[in-house]
């Protein structure tokens, strides 16, 4: 078998690497030059509001004070907003509630979306029609979806009617008036609206899994589940990370549908971070405080997401 050994010399492989690196280097420089103006613009758009927010968060400024935001230094109060925030129980419970919604909704959307995507990999009668129907929830304006679910979950509404029909009992749950069921209703609405996005992204991921490798695994005797676990999932890792990241970030900001359904109520039972911020802004008009909340959320969320992504990437390399 000696002659099967690696060829004595493969100069082309080496040259390929070097050539590639050189070209990439050139390309990078040119690319940077070309995108420079756009980068400056983006930097300005992204960084300026951030700095402004930081500035305001260190003051007690409100638009009602009659001075421009740039003059907010007159109302300087240092880190008072931040220390207040640490003691703000309504803030902390809103944060906890947001996390709870996210921890239930995102995995549910992921699993449902993945399941549907797997179904759609095979052919079945009416696939195209179902496919179109699947995408409808994404196209519905969130506010409209909010009203729709508001109607559905009325105590005399269709949801109770269906439950009555199924169970044979007269169900009349006041969904949106009870703290627990209100939260459930809100989560159902979110899952309904965002599962299709998961489905779409994951379907794209599934289509991208090399068919030959799946076939090779089949021929080696792997069962469906073994193939799924050892070939399909690892190949989809990147796209799964992207899908989850998008939904985690989006879900953390859950607002419009929810606000229309419950207004954050009953009481503060469905008050998420976004709703809380909105209420503070609209009702109390303490923008310095709002800026502090927003900044804390932004920073913690970006730390969370980048941690998650870098960990996933590290695992991938290992």
């Amino acid at each position: 078998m000696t002659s099967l050994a690696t060829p004595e010399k493969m100069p082309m492989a080496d040259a390929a690497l070097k050539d590639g690196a050189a070209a990439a280097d050139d390309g990078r420089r040119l690319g940077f030059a070309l995108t420079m103006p756009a980068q400056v613009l983006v930097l300005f758009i992204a960084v300026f509001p951030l700095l402004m927010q930081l500035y305001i968060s260190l003051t007690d400024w409100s638009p009602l004070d009659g001075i421009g935001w740039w003059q907010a230094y007159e109302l300087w109060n240092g880190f008072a907003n931040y220390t207040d925030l640490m003691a703000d129980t309504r803030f902390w419970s809103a944060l906890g509630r947001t996390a709870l919604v996210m921890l239930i909704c995102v995995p549910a959307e992921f699993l449902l979306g993945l399941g549907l995507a797997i179904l759609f990999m095979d052919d079945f009668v009416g696939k195209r029609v179902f496919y179109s129907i699947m995408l409808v929830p994404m196209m519905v304006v969130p506010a409209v979806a909010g009203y729709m679910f508001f109607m559905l979950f009325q105590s005399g509404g269709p949801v109770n009617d269906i439950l009555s029909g199924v169970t044979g009992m007269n169900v009349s749950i006041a969904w949106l008036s009870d703290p627990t069921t209100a939260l459930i209703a809100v989560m159902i609405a979110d899952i309904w609206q965002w599962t299709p996005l998961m489905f779409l992204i994951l379907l794209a991921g599934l289509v991208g899994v090399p068919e030959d490798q799946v076939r090779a695994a089949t021929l080696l005797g792997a069962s469906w589940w073994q193939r799924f676990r050892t070939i399909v999932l690892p190949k989809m890792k990147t796209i799964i990370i992207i899908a989850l990241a998008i939904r985690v970030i989006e879900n953390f900001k859950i607002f419009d549908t929810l606000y229309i359904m419950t207004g954050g109520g009953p009481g503060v039972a469905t008050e998420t971070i976004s709703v809380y911020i909105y209420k503070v802004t609209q009702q109390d008009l303490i923008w310095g405080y709002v800026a502090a909340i927003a900044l804390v959320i932004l920073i913690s969320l970006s730390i969370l997401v980048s941690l998650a992504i870098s960990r996933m990437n590290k695992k991938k390399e290992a």
Partner: protein
Amino acid sequence: MAGISFRNVTKRYGKTVAVKNASFDIQSGEFFCFFGPPLSGKSTILKLILGLETPDEGEVLIGGKPVNHVAPASRNVAMVFQNLALFPHMTAAQNIRFPLVERKVPEATIKARVDEVAAKLHIAHLLHKPPAQLSGGERQRVAIARALVRDPVAYLMDDPISALDARLREETRVELKRIQRELGQTLIYVTHDQEEAMSVADRMAIMEDGEIRQIGTPVEIYDRPASRYVAQLLGAPMMNLMAVDASGLEAGEGTIILPGQAMPQDVAGVGIRPEDLKVEPWAESHPGRPATVYEVEPLGGYTVVTLDTGGQKLRALMRGQPDVRIESAVALSCNPERIHFFGAAGEALRP
């Protein structure tokens, strides 16, 4: 004489040297081939000729004039692309005239040139057809016609037929050679297929890592390779390479007896082309040791016999369909004149 020459041309990409100190003269009317493994610098040389790249050192001359700072459009060299790049919505005639229309040449001149080129390439009867209605060979001719319509100093082809399957490649390369010979126009040709290079080229340059290792006719290079590297690049199966043992008299674990006195000084290794390796049934009277037949591969007209010397595998290319049994013991020999000698650095040595 509108030849193309390089004088010590070097081209770098960052730290990579794509072409290193290349010098050559391509004569007018020559079919000149650059041959080497992928990324050995062949395509970069084409780009330097076309003017798509500028040399870092040295000079590119076309027709004796330095053209380092002449723009591609003014160099008057034409390129025929691998996929031919014919416009599918135009007829053959419209495709061919396209480069002239672009240059705003008067209509009468265009007409005359297109007719002239079409006649030379025997495609006058095809001019009204779109590419889709032409055969592969006809499309090739149309693409060449489009390159030649400007009356370039030379036309260049970068691996033009590598996408075809084996049988069609054999036909097409002969066709290309025929066309070039009829036109008498300089053709600079890049390929990584040794059979193709040897078949078509008047002369060829062998490349390795951006450097030209040898220039000559295919027969010169095949018969008198300048180095072990060049020797192995040409020929299928590859040349058998063996180290010379301590006594300096044997190679291939004693299966091959070397000519001793007739050898040059400081021989480190020898090479024998498969067709020069003689295989005979083993007889005690034969000097040296027997080799064992490892594998027999019939090609029909020829047979490749792989031999196990006990330390390495050698290949012999035998005419016809000889009756050679696997595992049998055979005697190896070679006409001393057909043995290639190499020094320690792989350079060829002549007795």
